[in-house]
């Protein structure tokens, strides 16, 4: 809300300032124009996604933003196509479980690396970080061979296992646990809690903003993941949403209007996740501000 108020104040000032008293306002106008341009750039793809989802197939390659003959035919088609629900559920299950696992495992490992002194601690941390430098494309083949050996091809587990823990999440959580004072942990130790209880009741609540950020990252990452789910799944029933959507149409022609419709629908869960967790992030920032 504060942001809205701020924007309103400055835009009202801009609108009402017929004769700018201070020449410094020029700078502000330029700044606003730049931001406006940036905003347009960010919104364009989404606008085109929605616009295309409302077009008839013959109009798809027309660049106009407003469809000549708007239709919701695509939506009824996608929603009546039974496969869509299956993919949607698959994606929800996979993204949710992966997110929960990341929240638990990344923070456990991050906490351990941050708050315990043991030999090899630094080397383990560097080893975890170094995996950040390996691109997914390079890992896909070993993962595939491994899945084949273990019989994980075409299963939820096969889709999920590479992402149940991430180096990035571990790093993020470790950094955030640094902000939890050691006194808090020692006080709990004196009060008789074991290390797991301390992690859960003392440390975790204090890093909620980081957990929220991590949840958003991981959920979005898995929701939009394409290459690995495409490779590891064979049957149409196991497809995730992105994999399934890309298959709309036939060999001759890609049905963009249907893909865009599916994509538009599939942004809804990401919006929900973002709205839920974003509140924690903002509250965390506010709390930190009050303490400082």
């Amino acid at each position, binding site marked *: 809300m504060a942001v809205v108020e701020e924007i309103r104040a400055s835009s009202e000032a801009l609108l009402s300032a017929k004769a700018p008293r201070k020449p410094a306002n020029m700078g502000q106008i330029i700044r606003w124009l730049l931001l406006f341009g940036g905003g347009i750039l960010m919104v364009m793809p989404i606008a085109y996604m929605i616009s295309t989802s409302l077009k008839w197939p013959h109009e798809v390659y027309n660049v106009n933003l407003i469809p000549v003959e708007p239709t919701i035919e695509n939506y009824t088609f996608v929603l009546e196509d039974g496969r869509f629900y299956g993919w949607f559920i698959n994606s929800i299950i996979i993204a949710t479980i992966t997110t929960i696992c990341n929240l638990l495992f990344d923070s456990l490992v991050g906490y351990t690396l941050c708050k315990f002194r043991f030999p090899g601690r630094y080397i383990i941390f560097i080893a975890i970080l170094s995996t950040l430098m390996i691109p997914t494309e390079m890992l896909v083949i070993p993962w595939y061979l491994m899945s084949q050996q273990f019989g994980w091809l075409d299963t939820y587990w096969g889709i999920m296992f590479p992402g149940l823990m991430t180096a990035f999440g571990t790093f993020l959580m470790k950094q955030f646990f640094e902000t939890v004072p050691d*006194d808090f942990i*020692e*006080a709990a130790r*004196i*009060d*008789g809690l074991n290390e797991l209880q301390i992690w859960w009741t003392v440390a975790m609540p204090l890093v909620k903003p980081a957990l929220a950020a991590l949840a958003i990252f991981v959920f979005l990452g898995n929701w939009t993941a394409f290459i690995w789910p495409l490779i590891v799944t064979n049957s149409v029933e196991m497809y995730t949403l992105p994999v399934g959507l890309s298959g709309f149409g036939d060999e001759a022609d890609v049905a963009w209007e249907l893909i865009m419709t599916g994509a538009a629908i599939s942004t809804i869960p990401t919006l929900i996740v973002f709205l839920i967790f974003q509140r924690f992030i903002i509250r965390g920032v506010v709390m930190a501000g009050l303490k400082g």
Partner: protein
Amino acid sequence: MATLSLRQLTKTYEKTEVLHGIDLSIEDGEFVVFVGPSGCGKSTTLRLIAGLEEATSGDIEIAGRVVNNLEPKERDIAMVFQNYAIYPHMTVRKNIGFGLRTAKMSRADKEARIDEVAAILDMTELLSRKPSQLSGGQRQRVAIGRAMVRDPAVFLFDEPLSNLDAQLRTQMRLEIKKLHQRVGNTIVFVTHDQVEAMTMADRIVIMKDGHIQQVGTPDEVYHAPANTFVAQFIGAPSMNMLQGVGAEGGISLPSGIQFRGPLAPNGVPLVLGVRPDDLHLDDGEPLVEGQVAVREPLGHETLIYVTTQGGEIIAKADGRRPPDVGETVRLRARPDRVHIFDAATGQAIR
């Protein structure tokens, strides 16, 4: 409630020994204050007692039981930290009750105990607040409440008042002392503020560089300091030190003045210590003589800085009629108020 003893306790971090054999016995119900300059090992000693660090050698005994190999929770102690260590995400009630989480008590008993502690600390109406809605002094009281709730054998305090402003510190000092008189548990309190130590302690332990310098009641450490370090550390402004040499039946000072005092060996370099409070303007045979360089009026008295042959001396003069700056004054002390130390070892000679 319990006794606490430390026997030849040492602690080594990596290769540096920071505690060199601490020996101390604390009586049941005693209020002991550890005081010393920064880095002297006060916190380390406290953390060893708490079980947060492992002793390198030596024994820690609580209530007649060697606790070296016990976890903190098994030692029956509670600790209050400098930064309070109360949890921002929990209400005051939850924070105070945190110490009871693992206690084998019924829920109702726990609630009753929390209410009792809150009543003692006079914060019943704050129980549903979050720490961010409390003042510094109130937060400190929550931290104390959290330690009290389990009624531990020994309370450990690590500089609990150092984050408070001067006025609040004085108030909390009194509250902690009253609390001790009321509950009577053994308390080990760490501070680097000698006023806190003097006002609260039954006995003071003065530490420096990982060694205990002296253990004694506030009276003892003030009136009979064991060495020059203790003499200068306790009391403000700190004790004046004059270099001298042992002479027939006393000390001869560089100014040529002979001080007749305790028998000192002939020709041995000595240090003569005298507190500003014990130096008086007097026309009789002086201990030191010099010119007033600076005056610091404090109202009821005035501190005067006197330049003498043996260095600068601080003395206290009457607040109403202090000597003028530049005036030559003669200062005298009662012989029994003068402390003599061996210049080489710093040890008191009595």
